[in-house]
């Protein structure tokens, strides 16, 4: 098995999420853990690491925001078109740790994509967990992902939504994610899983610690430049770990330094 060679796979379904984000269902029997990612090839355009946002053994979902070559091109594609996949890579969320405990899921923007498999797992195995809260913030209501699932999700967990700027029709909370943190009903005995823009992760984790959430039980997913996805090319290396291989999910105490000082300390996590 050559880990650099992608398998070709067909897009079977494309769903619009927001003006710049779509969810692609791709035919593959890939088995994955929530939080893992694939290296997606669009032939001729390159490769990009993309988190798996869902899947059922016959297909996986990739929720992709169009920002560059690969991601723009896949946005132009139609069901039936073929892409390349390598993976799954990465460690995934340690959501099992939350069994018989409380679970807090914090997501910002596109960061909900890698967390969705965990949410769906909770939906199917609700009884395994105590209190579950999903805290999700986006810039605007129209930029929220998976809105069509919110009603279902709200039935089985606390769904706290917020936007930075409201739009007509939005009746929910307005403000950055931190402004909702005090609405979380469970503090002790909570496993926190978090993914979002670096600034958001920084402020939310600082606040959560203040509120009494145990830092050792917080997990963050990091994004880095990645080329190979298998811990050889070096690009994602930070402080002696490879984000692709040892992460992308890290316990807070490892990721903390990076979150605090993204430019200065590329490093010294221990």
């Amino acid at each position, binding site marked *: 098995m050559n880990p650099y060679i992608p398998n070709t796979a067909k897009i079977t379904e494309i769903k619009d999420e927001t003006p710049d984000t779509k969810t692609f269902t791709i035919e593959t029997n890939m088995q994955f853990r929530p939080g893992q990612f694939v290296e997606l090839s669009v032939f*001729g*355009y390159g490769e990009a690491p993309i988190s798996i946002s869902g899947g059922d053994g016959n297909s996986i979902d990739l929720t992709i925001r169009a920002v*560059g*070559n690969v991601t*723009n*091109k896949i946005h*132009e594609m139609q069901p039936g078109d073929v892409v390349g996949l390598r993976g799954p890579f990465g460690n995934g969320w340690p959501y099992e740790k939350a069994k018989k405990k409380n679970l807090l899921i914090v997501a910002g923007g596109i960061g909900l994509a890698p967390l969705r498999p965990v949410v769906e797992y909770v939906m199917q195995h609700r009884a395994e967990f105590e209190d579950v809260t999903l805290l999700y913030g986006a810039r605007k209501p129209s930029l929220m992902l998976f809105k069509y699932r919110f009603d279902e999700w709200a039935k089985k967990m606390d769904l706290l939504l917020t936007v930075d700027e409201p739009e007509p029709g939005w009746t929910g909370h307005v403000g950055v994610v931190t402004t909702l943190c005090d609405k979380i009903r469970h503090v002790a005995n909570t496993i926190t899983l978090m993914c979002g823009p670096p600034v958001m992760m920084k402020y939310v984790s600082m606040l959560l610690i203040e509120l009494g959430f145990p830092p050792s039980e917080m997990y963050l997913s990091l994004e880095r430049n990645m080329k190979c996805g298998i811990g050889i090319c070096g690009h994602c290396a930070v402080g002696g770990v490879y984000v692709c291989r040892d992460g992308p999910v890290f316990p807070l105490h490892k990721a903390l330094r990076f979150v605090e000082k993204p430019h200065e300390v590329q490093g010294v996590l221990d």
Partner: protein
Amino acid sequence: MISIGIFSLSCCEGCSVQFLNLEGKLLEVLKYYNIENFRLAKELNSLPVDIAFVEGTPTTAEEVKKLLKIRRDSNVLVALGTCAATGGVPGLVNTMSKREAMKVYDSNPPYMPVDPKPIDYYVPVEHKLYGCPFSKDELMELITAVIMNKSFKNRESSVCVECALRENACLLDKGELCMGPVTRAGCRALCPSNGAPCRGCRGPYEDANYKAHIRTLMDMGITREEIIEAYSMFSYEPLKEVIAWLKEQ
């Protein structure tokens, strides 16, 4: 079909020639592109075009007007070659006073001169193909990117990187004044690979550490004047400040 034009302002037209030097590839390219305007090779030339490749830099008011017109009548404007991208060799005249320069025309030049500047001094430019002449590989990259609707990006590293990738012996070790460390990659270190120091024809790149380069050269015993001369050769316009700083040292 994407319509293109190759336009020429004051320059040696080496970049036009380089365009024709795509040769076999040019015939491939012509399957996707329609050359609407190319004075060197065509009788009938028209505007507007989707992509205008502009070589050279305006040195007369007429040419400035021509450039403005090209900008108005094109969707994408590409600075073709170093003259257009940085002012290039013609920019050297900006190192001296106009009066001094005009003496060669008995102080009576046929046209009122305009200072050679990079063309983005006058109009917005979408892409720049550096090099004197530009690199054919990069042009093909750009041409492919346009067909495939991809982005095109200049390298943000130095000629040394490409030189090292070709595992050349470094010319600085031989005491040559090589401009590689501050010059934008993309030529595959053409000159050092042929035994000649890089003259900096592709102009500086964003992350260039001029002071370090100058310090290195001076440690080698190269004089300030020589460095100023080398820095001015292709990049007087973008490096003006560095050169001024260097003069003060």
